[in-house]
């Protein structure tokens, strides 16, 4: 199976401490590390960049946020992604104050704008992996 044949999946050789994030996604929960001093971070890192703590727990996130920035991809990396083009890749600022990257679905790409309220959605892309995306939501 070459790089051009199918959409990418998370790498099997990820560090062990990343796995709880993916296990939570499998259970349709978006989680991030929270260090003993209450600092949230994403993506997983082995040390808190704010305080140096190497201890953490996984905290469930609200999944609600707004679009910080985005692009509409017209030329995709591979034919498998090109079939979906044009599609939106957004950086979403979550209510908890951290940013995550994901697709925005459930609306026309042309309707997406910075500041747009979104919420997380989950897609089981294989027996093993679940990815998250975002869909528009009504502002609170």
């Amino acid at each position, binding site marked *: 199976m070459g790089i051009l044949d199918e959409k990418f999946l998370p790498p099997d050789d990820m560090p062990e401490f990343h796995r709880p994030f993916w296990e939570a996604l499998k259970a349709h929960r978006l989680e991030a590390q929270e260090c003993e001093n209450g600092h949230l971070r994403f993506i997983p890192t082995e040390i808190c960049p704010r305080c140096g703590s190497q201890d953490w727990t996984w905290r469930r996130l609200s999944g609600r946020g707004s679009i910080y920035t985005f692009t509409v991809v017209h*030329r995709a990396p591979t034919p498998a992604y090109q079939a979906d083009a044009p599609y939106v*890749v957004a950086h979403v600022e979550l209510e908890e104050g951290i940013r995550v990257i994901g697709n925005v679905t459930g609306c026309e790409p042309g309707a997406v704008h910075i500041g747009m309220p979104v919420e997380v959605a989950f897609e089981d892309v294989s027996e093993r992996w679940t990815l998250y995306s975002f869909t528009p939501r009504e502002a609170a």
Partner: protein
Amino acid sequence: MASFRRRKAVIAGVHMTEQGDLSGASPQQVYWQVVKGAVADAGLQLSDVDGLIGPAPEGLGLRGTLPGAAMADLLGRPLRFQAYTSVGAASTAAGIGPGIWAIENGVADVVILPTVSAGKGSGYTSADRGAAIAHMAKLGTPYEWLWGTTRVADHAVIAQRHMHQYGTTSEQLAEVAVAQRHGATLHPLSVMGRKGEITVDDVLASRMVAEPLHLLDSCIVNQGAGCIVVAAEDRLERARPRIRMIGYGQSHAYLDPNHLPDLTTFHGDVASDTAFGVAGIGRDEIDVISISDHFTINVIVGLEEAGFCKKGEGGPFVEGGALRIDGRLPTNTAGGYLSCTHAANSGTFGLIELVEQLRGSAGARQVTDAKLGYIHGVGGVFQSHFAAVLARD
């Protein structure tokens, strides 16, 4: 004869091969071609080379792991110095600092900084364009590529945010491409120069790749090779303007965009302020610059990062042909990654062009009486930076 004492080093030689499609040549053949070209440009011999920044020619076994040892086999004698610098596409150019320090501390006499993309290749140097783009997409930080990001998309989100935050326009982005294409038309080895001048309307009418970046906002994908030679001044006989590095800095800012509070501000000022601080000169004294330009937004943000304008003012700064050879701040005068070449460690070609400008050998592209130059090389999506101030004696 090696000399074990402290002395001055200069940027003594530069050379670039044909740029474009080098798939018919082997990377090894092109490596030695470009090294010999740069050594000859310095007025030196291959037998003078005793240092290397970067890789040995591609090969089997330990060539990749022990490049200095590999070079000893190939040059038929021990090498005295090898090092790597890691600033992405500007890695080779960023080696100018360590290369000069090695010589000034008596570690080596003549250091080469080669970069090569040739042959059939694989991965993101593949001659197969589709495979190359797919592999480049995976240069993103872990997991973001699961959502179908590309290198263009990685920069498009920055452009979008810059527009939102500061009012930067697509027309301003296009001005960068237009100014640089003009330079490329005056460079005999540029890939896009032969296609002629472009206008702002041409850029805006070109195919959208990742909004707001069009095809003509994007760098080209091509092969080619370049090499720089740094040498102890007392080893040089040829009478020609001596080009010195008078300031240098690096900044390694972030890896994952989620960790950066503001996706328009990338800590490149740390590298730039260090370089200008060491040089003891101001930005307003600089005659010509090179800035890594994977996309048009990179030049606008890069000018801000390097302190040539305030954060957010890069858009208005580039209006009215300011970056043209005859403009207020001539920038990427050979055409840059957008229009000259984006081969291998392409920051090398920005440094080569600065050297040509400061020597006064840039021909039709010559910036009048250029004495002081600045290069701001970027690795990844503004993730790592290096800065250097160059001066002609």
